[in-house]
């Protein structure tokens, strides 16, 4: 006879192990590379959005920080590599990613220390205002940022000095974005299954209790916020590098709200919600928005209302419920 609690302990001990289906997104991404060679530019955007949503999932899905200003860090990363390339001739992509992560992470750290003491509406507003401040600064600092027009026609060096970004065929860009996403994903995955990730979940679930078990809540939140900001910065940097331009759209409320929608649509606090949400949202947008922009807005509006009212855990949540029902039926 197994001792009671053994199964629960096994489940916890096995939680972080890779499951067979976790290979599917990557297989799908590689398959898309070969199947849709004309859509690789779009595919690159999807990959970037996944990474951005993943960074948001860390703070919002796991640590429970509701922010309306996450595009601040995406934009910080995007502008960092843009400015470095245009004004300082620093156009080596990989070191550019590091620079973007450092700058965005630093902004995340400083703003996290200051902002994360607030909550509720005040937190929403201070995150929003911080992003708006950055946006206005980028608008005003035209000498460096190109102001409203941004910086078009940036040039970046080949990756490892070999693989050149081709502005017409996005093969190199797609694979580059995919590789960056993979590395970042492995990192985030390790993080959420670590004791640190467990304690973030604890903060989300009950911050009062977290204080009462002696957790340095504020410090953990700032650390998570900093890491998340750095990852969002990397996503922004990849955006600039692969599209060869950057403008104010990387910093706006549109982008911040968009990534929020992507994550919630897919299912937050679930790691793969970012993948599912980004693909669903962007494919729909791509097919609908161009032909019927207003219909797209109407459609996504209705979807959001329905998700908020009936499917709070997003697409993955629906899938989990269905799977649960299926199991119940099989068992009975």
């Amino acid at each position, binding site marked *: 006879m197994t001792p009671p609690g053994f199964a*629960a302990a096994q489940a*916890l001990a096995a939680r972080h*192990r890779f499951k067979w289906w976790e290979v599917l997104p990557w297989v799908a991404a590689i398959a898309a590379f070969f199947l849709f060679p004309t859509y690789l530019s779009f595919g690159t955007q999807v990959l970037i959005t996944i990474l951005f949503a993943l960074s948001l999932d860390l703070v919002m899905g796991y640590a429970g920080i509701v922010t309306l200003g996450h595009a601040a860090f995406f934009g910080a990363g995007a502008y960092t590599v843009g400015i470095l390339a245009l004004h300082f001739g620093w156009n080596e992509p990989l070191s550019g990613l590091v620079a973007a992560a450092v700058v965005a992470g630093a902004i995340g750290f400083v703003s996290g220390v200051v902002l994360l003491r607030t909550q509720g509406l005040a937190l929403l507003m201070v995150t929003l205002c911080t992003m708006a401040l950055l946006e206005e600064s980028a608008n005003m600092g035209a000498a460096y940022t190109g102001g409203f027009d941004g910086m078009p026609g940036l040039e970046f060096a080949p990756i490892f000095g070999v693989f050149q970004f081709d502005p017409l065929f996005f093969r190199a860009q797609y694979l580059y974005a995919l590789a960056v996403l993979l590395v970042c994903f492995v990192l985030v995955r390790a993080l959420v299954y*670590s004791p640190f990730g467990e304690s973030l979940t604890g903060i989300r679930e*009950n911050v009062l209790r977290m204080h*009462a*078990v*002696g957790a340095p809540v504020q410090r953990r939140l700032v650390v998570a916020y900093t890491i998340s900001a750095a990852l969002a910065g990397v996503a922004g940097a990849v955006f600039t590098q692969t599209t060869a331009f950057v403008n104010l759209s990387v910093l706006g409320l549109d982008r911040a709200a968009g990534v929020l929608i992507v994550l919630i649509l897919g299912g937050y606090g679930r790691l793969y919600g970012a993948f599912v949400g980004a693909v669903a949202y962007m494919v729909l947008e791509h097919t609908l928005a161009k032909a019927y922009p207003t219909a797209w807005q109407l459609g996504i509006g209705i979807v959001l209302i329905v998700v908020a009212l009936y499917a709070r855990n997003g697409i993955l949540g629906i899938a989990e419920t269905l799977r649960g029902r299926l199991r119940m039926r099989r068992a009975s």
Partner: protein
Amino acid sequence: MTAVLLETRGLCKNFGALEVAREVGIRLEAGARHALIGPNGAGKTTLVNLLTGLLRPSRGRVLLRGEDVTHLTQAGRVKRGIARTFQINQLFRGLTVLENVYIAVAERMGVASSMIRPAGRRRDVIDQALRLLETLKLADDAGRRVAELPYGRQRLVEIAIALGLEPRVLLLDEPAAGVPGAESHIILDAIAALPDEIGVLIIEHDMDLVFRFAQQITVMVSGEIFAEGTPTEIAANRDVRAVYLGSAAADG
């Protein structure tokens, strides 16, 4: 003479003009079983919040084993051995029972900030959490989400989390509150089985439980200590009967 674990001196707390604690001085000794009783609004939970650092006193001091901890954060006091339960469950409802206790144990063992090694690989943390669940007879529910448990068992998880911190001082805020009569014995059993060396301060309205459990009773009324003594002394105290037991009897 036994060592004084926890002591307050002249503790005061005001919310604006409202005085919720006035010159409160209590002492808790190692291994103590000390009950804090008093009518609703007497300031009992406020006192617990002052002891744990959830609230800062307006005046006065909190001493833990002689060390002034008045200005320490909650985390700092937990590290020095104060743990508590809440009057209304404060659990990680979406997580399993095992995870709830894991979080507390990981925090105490100082591994909760580690980012790379998976939580599941910390067998030491898991094993300790499991052992604790076994002593509280919660092991069968280890894999269930807290939100799915009946309320009485959720109250046990409160206690399990606090014990996961291996406290020297345990503050129990109405551990049996809201538990249906049929389940209340599991709480009583758990309290009776607490390790001897822990000093326990319990807030409770159930007089049976108080008189069965406590060696020492403090009665609070309107933010002040009204009477102190052994259960026999308190039971015989006419003023206490008039102010508190009398009204409780009238209510019940």
